[in-house]
Structure formats: structure tokens, C-alpha cells
């Protein structure tokens, strides 16, 4: 079996799930797939899904790598808030756009470094280590914004949230490029294999000479960087930083995206593309519920039910019964 076939088999369940979700929405809302081109970009619900899904997609990139090492990063939502707040306050303080972005992205990397050191050097369990920043992060973000919703009027920064590039909303271009970049990085180099090895058996990997510590710190830093990008996009979109609500509970959506992407929470083999499709599935469900006109109080319950169905359909037990598709490593 060659590489392309292997890849298609790996992402087949996710693609099929996405197709089913989209078809259901199309059934309820016939005009759903209409696209139009105006003001130099595409408009339409599918584009809207890609656009609204940008923060979770970005988080899912970092989260996939963290989970592949057998860890988890609960702090990404809080890191989004911190970085959004830093971007907003830097731009209102009169810094230029490049300096603002550098500061915000740098803060994300610093948050990742903090998590990585706690996990890899101090040896705290990832769920606890990242919980610290998850709790503290929103406090830090509030300190940065001094308790208010910090608004700004810089068009350059706002462009990142609501502008167009290459006929697509800027956030879409950003997450697609980031996804492609990280995928190339881990698969064209040996990083992907080394990350998987550390995730399956850290001790054995270290004894084989893998620099597990450095890899773990790097992976949490990538997650922090992705969270920073997501935070900047969210702040840029609303032209303001809301320390309380930016990225709230998005860490859970990101983890969910990784799980829907068929990646094991125990670590090991991973697929970034499958996680990204997972993120888009989540956003499709969100959008679908909205366009179907259900009363908003049902939204979370319906979403939970849909997620449950997706996970049950993907579960290895069901696969064993030969009901649906085959999983990457559990193929019969």
C-alpha cells in the first residue's frame, strides 16, 4: 500500500462524517452550498464555516502534536485570551503592527515554554501542569486589559480577523497555511516519528537516544504559538480583546477536534489533516444548528448528541463489527 492510499484510508472516516453532516445541513437548508463572489472574496455558508472554524482549527494543530506525545494542553483557551489582550493593548499603546504581532506570538511561545518545562523538566502530569495556566491565564489577560474590553481601530490588525486574502477570509488562509506548514514540518523531517515514539514509550525513546525533553517542550511551544494566532484572529475580528470570553472553552473543542480526527488520547500515531477535518466538522455542526433555526437553548445538547454519534460510529468496537470504515492502525 503506498502513501497516498494509506493517507486516504486514514482520513476516510473523517471525510465521510463531514460529508454526512454537510448533507444533513443541506437537506434542512437548501441554499446552504450557494457561493458568491463579491468585494474580492467568496461568500457563502461553507466559506463561513471555514472562517468561523479558524480558531479551533489552529488550536487543533498544536493540540494534535501535544496529544501525540501522550499529553494534553488545557491552557490554550486562556493563552488565546492573553495573546489577544496583548495584541490589543500593544496596538492601542501605539506599537506598529509587526511589533504587536511579535509580542503577541512571543507571549504564546512563552506560555508554551512554561507548560513544556512543567511537563518535561519538572515532571508534572500534563493535565495538571496546563490546568495551572488555564486558571491563571484569564487572570493575566484581565491584568493586561485592566478589566475592560479593550477596543482598537487599527485596520492592519483588524485585517487579520476580517480581511480577505486570495479570495478567502484571512483567517482561513492563516489556518490552512499553518496546517500545511506544520504537516510538512513533521512529515518531511523525522519530528513526526520521534513525537510518536515519545508518546508511545517515553523511557524507551530516551534510551534510544531521542531527546524527549526538548521534543516535549517544542510541542507545547507550538501549541502556545497556535493559541496565540487564534487569539490574535479572534481579537482582530471583533476589534477588541475580551479577557473573560475570548477562547472560553475552546480548549475542549480543540481536544474534541483531535478525538474526532481519530487520534488516540494515549498518544502515538497522529494525523494533523484528520484533526483539521475534525475542527471543521465541529464548526459545521455549530453552523448547521444555527441555520436550521433550532432554539438556541437546544444548541449545546444537539451538538453533544451529534458528537456522541460521530464518536460511536468511529469507535473500534463498531469497526470490529464491520459496520463502517477501518481505522489507521486497527485495520482488520
Amino acid at each position, binding site marked *: 500500500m503506498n502513501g497516498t492510499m494509506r493517507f486516504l484510508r486514514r482520513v476516510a472516516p473523517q471525510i465521510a462524517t463531514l460529508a454526512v453532516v454537510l448533507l444533513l445541513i443541506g437537506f434542512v437548508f437548501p441554499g446552504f452550498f450557494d457561493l458568491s463572489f463579491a468585494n474580492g472574496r467568496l461568500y457563502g455558508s461553507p466559506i463561513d464555516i471555514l472562517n468561523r472554524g479558524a480558531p479551533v482549527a489552529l488550536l487543533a494543530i498544536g493540540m494534535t502534536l501535544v496529544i501525540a506525545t501522550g499529553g494534553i494542553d488545557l491552557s490554550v483557551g486562556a493563552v488565546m485570551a492573553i495573546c489577544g489582550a496583548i495584541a490589543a493593548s500593544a496596538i492601542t499603546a501605539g506599537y506598529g503592527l509587526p511589533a504587536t504581532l511579535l509580542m503577541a506570538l512571543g507571549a504564546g511561545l512563552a506560555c508554551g515554554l512554561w507548560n513544556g518545562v512543567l511537563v518535561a523538566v519538572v515532571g508534572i502530569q500534563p493535565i495538571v501542569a496546563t490546568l495551572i495556566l488555564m486558571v491563571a491565564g484569564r487572570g493575566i489577560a484581565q491584568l493586561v486589559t485592566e478589566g475592560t474590553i479593550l477596543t482598537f481601530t487599527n485596520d492592519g490588525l483588524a485585517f487579520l480577523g476580517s480581511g480577505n486574502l486570495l479570495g478567502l477570509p484571512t483567517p482561513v488562509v492563516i489556518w490552512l497555511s499553518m496546517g500545511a506548514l506544520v504537516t510538512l514540518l513533521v512529515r518531511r523531517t523525522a519530528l513526526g516519528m520521534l513525537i510518536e515514539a515519545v508518546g508511545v514509550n517515553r*523511557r524507551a525513546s530516551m534510551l*534510544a537516544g531521542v531527546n524527549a525533553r526538548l521534543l516535549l517542550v517544542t510541542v507545547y511551544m507550538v501549541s502556545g504559538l497556535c493559541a496565540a494566532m487564534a487569539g490574535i484572529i479572534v481579537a482582530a475580528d471583533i476589534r477588541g480583546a475580551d479577557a473573560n470570553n475570548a477562547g472560553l472553552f475552546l480548549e475542549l473543542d480543540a481536544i474534541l477536534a483531535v478525538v474526532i480526527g481519530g487520534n488516540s488520547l494515549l498518544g502515538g500515531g497522529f494525523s494533523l489533516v484528520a484533526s483539521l477535518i475534525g475542527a471543521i466538522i465541529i464548526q459545521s455542526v455549530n453552523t448547521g444548528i444555527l441555520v436550521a433555526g433550532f432554539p438556541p437553548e437546544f444548541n449545546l445538547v444537539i451538538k453533544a448528541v451529534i458528537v456522541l454519534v460521530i464518536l460511536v460510529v468511529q469507535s473500534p468496537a463498531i469497526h470490529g463489527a464491520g459496520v463502517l470504515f477501518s481505522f489507521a492502525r486497527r485495520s482488520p
Partner: protein
Amino acid sequence: MTSGQASTLLTASGLTKTFPGTRALDGVDFELHAGEVHALLGENGAGKSTLIKCLTGAYRRDAGDIRLDGASIDPHNTLDAQSLGIGTVYQEVNLLPNLTVAENLLLGRQPRRFGFIARKAMNGEGREMLSRYGLDIDVARNLDTYSVAIQQIVAIARAVSLSGKVLILDEPTASLDRDEVRMLFDVIRGLRREGLGIVFISHFLDQVFEISDRLTVLRNGRLVGVRDVAGLDRLQLVNMMLGRELAEETRDHGRTGIDYAAEPRIRFSGTGRSGAIAPFDLDVHRGEVVGVAGLLGSGRTETAELMFAAAPKDSGSVTKNGKVLRLASPRDAIAAGFGFSPEDRKTSGIIADMSVRENIVLALQARIGWSRRIPRRRQREMADDYIRRLDIRTPDAEKPIGQLSGGNQQKVLLARWLATNPEFLILDEPTRGIDVGAHAEIIRMIEELCANGMSLLVISSELDELVAYSHRVIVVRDRAHVAALVGQDITTDRIVSAIARPTNLEAAQ
């Protein structure tokens, strides 16, 4: 001996089980009498565990018939088999170490009062169960406060009380010492007198000869033969298992050609860590095999870990060809041309979910760095090459290593290090838990590697083995290196006496 009475308890005929790529069992017949100990023998991958798993319902057979007391049975899972009368005790005791002995014995059927567990009644019942095995211990204490041997007997007691007709013991003696083995065998003999049919799986041929009445040999998924143990010749048995003549005692020592006058390749001086191993000096020359003997917990594994910088040392220095090495981590050691295959394959060796190919290239890839990925085609070539050269039994290089047998996993780990072309390779118990055939191959490999100029340090509990290939044997006792044997002094007797009565040899050293 029971061969006269021969009341058949369990028969399996024409058992067949196929996995993708391999036929694990091919029309195998097996017959167990009541009141006999029946040994099941074969190399790794011969089909022993598959046969057991079919009998206990852990696997569903593809074809064949299983009869218990003349009635055809079809166990769907191990619980099913247990209720039919077939109980199993595995090598790693499958009990709950954090519960008491009595709880382990009676788990799931504890005596109750008003819906609560009647602890006193439970402990009484537990004591009674164990008294049958001549064991008088405090059953209210947690299981993990007792030795593995006692845990093993508790597991047997539980299995017998649940099933009571057939008892399958899968490598029960692997982690027991001599006295514990004797204790276990007394228990087995007692059960035999009571008319149980006992299937005994072991790599230790001495034990097979000591305890078994009959034996069945499998090879490559096929039945080779069934023999009465009385009157069976040992060499004949090994031949049945291997399907070839094994020159049992003809290994040549080849203890020549080491230039001890030359500067040693690796020199450890005063290397030690308090609490782990007392400071030791050790020179390793080009093409030399240094054997390390000692009981479990004597400090032999600690020696290896300090050498490889897998554990920090608090004294001493290491030089290679006269130059001082700074070894702060396994990465440094690997960069200096070291390799280390640890004792515990499962937790420290294999990356279970990853393929044979990935496991082989891992150390080399880690050494050349993450940015320069070994091209996939090159990885395939390397893996296929080692699979052929080391005769690794796997359908292909993409099979997860966790699914291979122990001996094949060991060969993959060896391949992982050979791929890095090390100058100094440390092997901790390279032949533990693997069968005679793979055993012989690994010993041959060790001899071949040192003939090619590699320096090896091999830790092993198998003294025959150390005697066969070592140029020098270091004896470790009570966390210190207490003796070094060279040349004609390397005999199992000498090693044993150095382990047991060290004083005069220490003086000699």
C-alpha cells in the same frame, strides 16, 4: 507417573488458527489426562500461546474440535472456559496487587452479610483455601506485600477453586528463585494427586524434566510429537524443538586475539553512585565480551545504566581511546558509540505501537537528528535487511512490534543498535524469556559481533551462556563488583562460588 491409567480429560484435535500473514496453528492435536502434568514445549512463535488461547477461549479457533470430559466445548472467552473447568495462570500474575490476599482469592464471590462484604468470613474462607496448598499467611494483608511465588500460588488457588479440572500454567517459574520453584512444584504435585490435568509451559528444560509426566512439542504451528518424559533424552528433546542438531556443548570460547597490552577502548574509573553501585573500575577492549553475573538486585543493571548514562553517576570518569568522555544522558553515550538494550523489553525497549521498521531506525534517526529524516525507502531497506539477517519472524516490516513474540522483539532491539554501528554495546539479559532457538541465535550473534571488533558487555542470569562467550566475567554482589574471572577461571562453578562465597575470590582479585 500416570501414563498407565490414562483417563483422558481434555482433547483438542485439528486445531487451526490463522492470523493475517501467518498460520499460528495448523491442525494441532493435543491430549491431556486427568492427574498428569503435561509440558507444552516449543520455540517462540511455535504456537504454544496460540494453542493455550484457543483452549481458554481468548481466541476463537478457525477449525478443529475441543472436548472436555468427552463433551465438545466451545469457550467464547476466558470466563466461559473458567466456568467449564479450565483455569489459567499467566507468567505475570493477573491479580490485583493492591487488594488483600483474601479479596483476590474470592473476588466476585465474597461472602456477604446484609449486602456488605463479610470480611471475617472472607478471610476465614481465604485461609482455608490456601491451607490446602500448605500456605499459612495473613490473608488480610495486601497481595503485593508477598513474594511473586506466593502471589503465583494465590493465583493458582483462585484458578483451581473457580475451575477445578484443567489448570494451565504459562511460564509460572520465570521470575522465581530455586526455593520458590520447589514450593510451587510441591503445590503442582498436590494438585496432580487430586486428579487435575495440568498444562505446564516453561523455557526451563530442567524443570520440565523434573515435574512433567508427558510433553507435547510444537514447531511453527505444527505438532512435532508427544513423548513420555521418563526415558526421554534431553538432546533428543532439543532436537524436536529446534528441528535441527544443536551442538550443545561445542561452543568454542575463542578467548584469544584480545590485545590486553593495548590501551582499552573504553575505560571506566571509579564510576559509581551511592545507593546503586559502589565505584568500580572496568576496562573494555576491542573485540572483547565482558560478562556480568550476579543475582537480581545485585547491582548489575545499575552498572549498565551508569555506563550508558541512563542514570546519573556521582563519581568517576569514562574515557574512550584515552580521551575523557562527558556523558550526561543516553544521547551523549550514543554519540560516543555506545548502545544499550535494557533488561525490561516492554517498558524500556520496544515502542509497542510502532512498526518493526520504525523501531529499527529509531536510534539511528535520533542520532542523526530530527531534521535529516532517513528516507522511507532507505528505512524499508534497512528493516528488510535486518529482518533477513537476524531471521526476525514477522509477516512484514510494518507490523507493530508489540505483536511479535519476545525473542523476535529482542532481535528487533538488537537490530536497532546494530543500525547505529556501535563500538560498545551493552546487553542486559538479551536472552531472558526467549526460547532455545532464538537463544542460540542471539549467542551466535554476540560471538559474531565481537569477532568483528565490537566490544560488548553482556549481563545474564544464564551462567552457561556467560561462560560460552565471555572473555572476562565480572561478578556483582550487594551493589559492588566483587570479582573478575578470566581465562580458565571462567566456569559456572567459579561464578556461582563468587556469587555465593565471595571472600576468598575477592582476596585473589
